């Protein structure tokens, strides 16, 4: 498949740029932060009106069935303005898990709610501080006609607004590595579930879930008997590639703002962009970003095609973009000089959000290591 966007995808990009640029510019993030608000429900209902909450969900369940290249386009634009929403976790990652692993009944019960945006499902996966999806201690033990969940989940995204959590747990009753996993849908207000919110540097909130004998019916479990491994791997490939797409948008925006500043800021009587020392740093960063664009698009195409090198490409994408985004925000502050260090100027938001997005679904160290393992070394 050609490494370009088709006409429909280009139209989606234009629509996303306009909608997100108008309804959620960086100034909106500043307002939310200053008011201590976790998110913008208005933005979410706007996204639902655009159909984006069901962007990758099949039409029969109320989605657009637009594919993951399309999902990446939307997240890239969100990355440009640092717009926060549950799109990635709920509409893309959890929706894919349900579509891949769920029964027909579960799909028709759950997917329409996710597609309409009424349900916000958050993936409760992490237990450690560094991303490690292979080591899960939370358990789901048979209890009468259903299961009882126990364990702790940390750094859970979208915790303030989630209506449900999709909890990754081990159904054979033991701490699991790899394949002995299932996914359990837990209502936010389920008895025995405690949610503690923490504020992160990017003004978003993550949750710590305490699961203490949380009872769920058997029909709330997908991938029963440890069948979730494959599907979870696919969902985490999607998460990595899409997280890379968001970071790519962020890094490009930080870069473009920097190039703009180089043309306008004068010292020694000339624009600082006329200095070769800065020109070369900007040009090098441009080159890195071009590589990022290629590998992100290829990874998303590989997901849409369910290609055999999907995992390799997803890890390459996140590893490359995470490293480049870090470079982009650091270079942005350095080339802006002191103004980049002030809270009044927006660059700090880019630096903070980059740090958080790098960690989400595995940072460059995690994915470079995985790339090596998948390559046989």
């Amino acid at each position, binding site marked *: 498949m*050609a*490494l*370009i966007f088709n006409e429909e995808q280009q139209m989606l990009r234009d629509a996303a740029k306009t909608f997100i640029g108008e309804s959620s510019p960086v100034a909106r993030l500043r307002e939310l932060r200053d008011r201590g608000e976790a998110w913008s429900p208005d933005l979410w209902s706007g996204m639902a009106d655009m159909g984006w909450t069901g962007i990758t969900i099949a039409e029969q369940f109320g989605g657009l069935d637009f594919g993951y290249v399309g999902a990446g386009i939307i997240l890239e634009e969100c990355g440009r303005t640092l717009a926060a929403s549950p799109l990635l976790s709920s509409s893309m990652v959890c929706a894919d898990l349900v579509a891949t692993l769920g029964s027909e009944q579960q799909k028709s019960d759950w997917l329409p709610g996710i597609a309409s945006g009424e349900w916000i499902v958050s993936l409760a996966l992490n237990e450690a501080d560094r991303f490690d999806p292979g080591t899960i201690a939370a358990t789901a033990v048979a209890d009468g006609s259903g299961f009882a969940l126990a364990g702790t989940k940390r750094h859970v995204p979208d915790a303030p607004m989630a209506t449900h959590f999709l909890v990754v747990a081990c159904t054979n009753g033991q701490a699991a590595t790899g394949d002995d996993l299932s996914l359990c849908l837990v209502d936010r207000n389920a008895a025995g579930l405690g949610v503690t919110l923490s504020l992160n540097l990017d003004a978003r909130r993550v949750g710590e879930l305490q699961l203490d004998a949380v009872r769920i019916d058997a029909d709330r479990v997908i991938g029963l008997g440890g069948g979730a491994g494959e599907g979870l791997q696919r969902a985490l490939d999607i998460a990595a590639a899409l997280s890379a797409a968001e970071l790519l948008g962020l890094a490009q925006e930080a870069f473009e703002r920097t*190039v703009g500043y*180089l*043309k306008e800021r004068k010292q020694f009587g*000339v*624009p600082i*962009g*006329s*200095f*070769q020392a800065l*020109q*070369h740093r*900007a*040009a*090098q960063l*441009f*080159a890195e970003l*071009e*590589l*990022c*664009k*290629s*590998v992100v*698009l*290829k990874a998303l195409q590989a997901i849409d095609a369910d290609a055999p090198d999907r995992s390799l*490409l997803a890890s*390459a994408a996140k*590893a*490359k973009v995470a*490293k480049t985004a870090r470079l982009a925000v650091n270079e942005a502050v350095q080339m802006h000089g002191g103004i980049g260090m002030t809270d009044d100027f927006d660059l700090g938001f880019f630096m903070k959000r980059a740090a958080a997005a790098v960690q989400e679904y595995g940072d460059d160290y995690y994915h*470079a*290591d995985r*790339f*090596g*393992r998948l*390559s*046989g*070394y």
Partner: protein
Amino acid sequence: MARTFAQEEIIVADLDTFREETRAWLDENCPASMRRPVMTDKDLCWGGRKWVFASDDQRVWLERMAERGWTAPQWPAEYGGGGLSKEEAKILKQEMTRIGARRPLDSFGIDMLGPALLKFGNEAQKRRFIPEIVRGEIRWCQGYSEPNAGSDLASLQARADDKGDHYLVNGSKVWTSYADKSDWIFCLVRTDFEGPKHQGISFLLFDMESEGVSVNPIRLISGNSPFCETFFENVRVPKAHLVGEVNQGWSIAKYLLTHEREMIGGFGLSRSGRESLGTIARQALGSADGRLANEGLRADIAAFEIDELAFALTAERVVDEARAGQGTGAASSLLKLYGTELNKVRNELLMSVGGSAALRWGDAQHTALSQHWLRSKGNSLEGGSSEIQLNIIAKRILGLPG
């Protein structure tokens, strides 16, 4: 022009047929020894009047491919080229890669001069030179750099004086690749000394056996001498061998340089036909629990391979964008910059993987690694240094002032 759905279907079907036919033809015509990876420079075929084929297979492979014009797949068939569309050329390349087929001809005529001649040359020049280039019967060298004109190429001083029916060329060139093995030279000369330096340059073609041409190979740190100093003393060049208009050679030179950059940048992306760095390292270092025994080296290799993959995809994307009319321009500078820097990293890592065994010198079997490492240092100098490419990106793509 928009194609209808039905037209698209026909094109797709045609391409499928082309792929089948190409696959069958290659299977039948590519000799087995021409499907082995290129290990040393001796495995490359450069052609030309003085060329001695390394094997019968090398000769046969060149002749068969040249017969179809597939040494230059997209050049017009009327001049001996393959006449293929971009889609067909891509399929040919994929099918060659699939069986590990070597390039039948490595040629500055194909990679550099040909595209410029097809664009700027007159009909007689095209008829005369293009078929010879396609068939590998003429080997070209490039007379660009001079002792005092490197990165500042436009300040070149080699001169061509108008003598009525011919030019008289005097001066010298340096870093002339394979000048001692080449048949002809495409050469930048100054034809005007008054106006702006970019507007007094002309583009000449002449035979390296002309009276007054002399060549002196330069020994490099690798121990090889791929480059030469080239001297011109009252060399007579017929005016028929001026390409384009007099004093308008700079635009031809720049056009040709974009092709040269793509060729040099390509060094970094020719992943096919060579083992991955990770595989080489695993064999050399061994592994524990499926991981390379050295964690630091492993991390650097993974970082390199991710960049290598992303770079190869970028080269692919540039082609796809150009085909769809979406190109951003100046892509050749990006590819040249990144491809050559990556190739240097690859060679550094290969030396680290090899350890002390990579230090051997003096016998052909063991010296290739260290010689390639040393040779790779020139990749980011030739064809416009990395710094020049960064300048081009900064000014032409990013629009930075100065």
